[in-house]
């Protein structure tokens, strides 16, 4: 720690530290407790992978939407009523094929298009994924249960600027003619990160 000349005492628990910040902001009239309610709800109920799943399902059944999605992701998801934060000015949708597996990461921190694909899970934010997926992508995917045939090309997208990415997985076999809702229920967050493929139902 940089402050070696301070008196050494017990480090407050993370809960105590969160409490301290929240109370200090509240006391200054900055309405932290209200924000915790509101943003907590958004983070847990609104910014969820089901949003992205709807986008993917629509792209599978509507070729024109798919084109618009690949051309300008931010505008296309807005058609479904989905918003992105102001500082996410660009959403790039990455199309998986039988020959190509796209996978996203953020080696410098843990950025994602969280309003669309949901807030990222621990493993995405852990140092193991961040350090290894760019250098040992095939091994990392295999360890995570995705054993790609050697002919599949891996494309790793490192979210180092404020452009956001999401993966458009292949539509599972045997789901032709399914409804949009039924298709959306098949789409997992991990398939939109690119660490999983969707099997036939």
């Amino acid at each position, binding site marked *: 720690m940089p402050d070696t000349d301070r008196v050494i005492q017990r480090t407050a628990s993370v809960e105590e530290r969160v409490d301290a910040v929240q109370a200090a902001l509240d006391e200054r009239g900055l309405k932290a407790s209200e924000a915790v309610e509101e943003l907590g709800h958004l983070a847990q109920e609104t910014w969820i992978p089901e949003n992205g799943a709807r986008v993917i399902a629509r792209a599978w059944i509507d070729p024109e939407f798919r084109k618009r999605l690949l051309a300008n992701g931010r505008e296309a998801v807005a058609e479904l009523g989905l918003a992105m934060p102001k500082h996410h*000015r660009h959403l790039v949708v990455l199309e998986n094929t039988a020959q190509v597996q796209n996978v996203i990461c953020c080696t410098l921190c843990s950025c994602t298009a969280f309003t669309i694909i949901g807030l990222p899970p621990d493993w995405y934010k852990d140092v193991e994924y961040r350090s290894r997926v760019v250098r040992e992508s095939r091994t990392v995917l295999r360890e995570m249960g995705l054993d790609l045939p050697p002919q599949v090309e891996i494309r790793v997208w490192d979210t180092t600027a404020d452009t956001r990415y999401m993966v458009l997985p292949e539509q599972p076999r045997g789901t032709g003619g399914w409804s949009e809702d039924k298709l959306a229920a098949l789409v997992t967050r991990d398939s939109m990160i690119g660490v999983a493929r969707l099997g036939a139902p």
Partner: protein
Amino acid sequence: MDGIHDLGGRQGFGKVRYTQGATAFHAAWEVRANSLYAHAVRLRIFNMDEYRHAIERMDPRHYLTASYYERSLTSLATLLVEKGVVTREELERRAGGDFPLAAPSAPGRTNAEGRARFRLGDRVRVTQDSVPGHMRLPGYIRGKTGVVVGESPAYPFPDAHAHGVQSEDEPTYDVRFRSGDLWPNSAEPALIHVGVFQSYLEPAG
């Protein structure tokens, strides 16, 4: 800064602790920490580049052992203290113990001079730049050559935006690299795409 956060390609890390459908949050305090920093951004107490940089300025031992949301919390508290919203003493009094904060910031910088515009398909080289402040250039592409495959709308330049330095917004380019060019003879074959600010790029001829 060439900090502990710059993890891409670092070796010695173990298996990813992957479980299918893992949840984003594991405890109520994590949701609160996430909401509080987002609230502070919304209140314009600090911006996202300042937020990210304050995480990077954490003591490397603390950074590596803290959970993601403890890092969020540390950045939030550091910036609240640095912006004069609250004192560390008050936070520690309220918390009833030590409240570790990040180290002070070094100066930032503005955009590179005479930066080039690129088109899709252009070959580009990443500069050797390294600065004591914030930047969004992962070390593993420094000095490497790739191909432009995409361009974003203009964004604030992080090296300036994290430090209150005046600068022009600039586009970022999606640059495609071959893993074998990034780590000769010591990477698995793959294409690595990185979002690179214009100031970090020069024509590769």
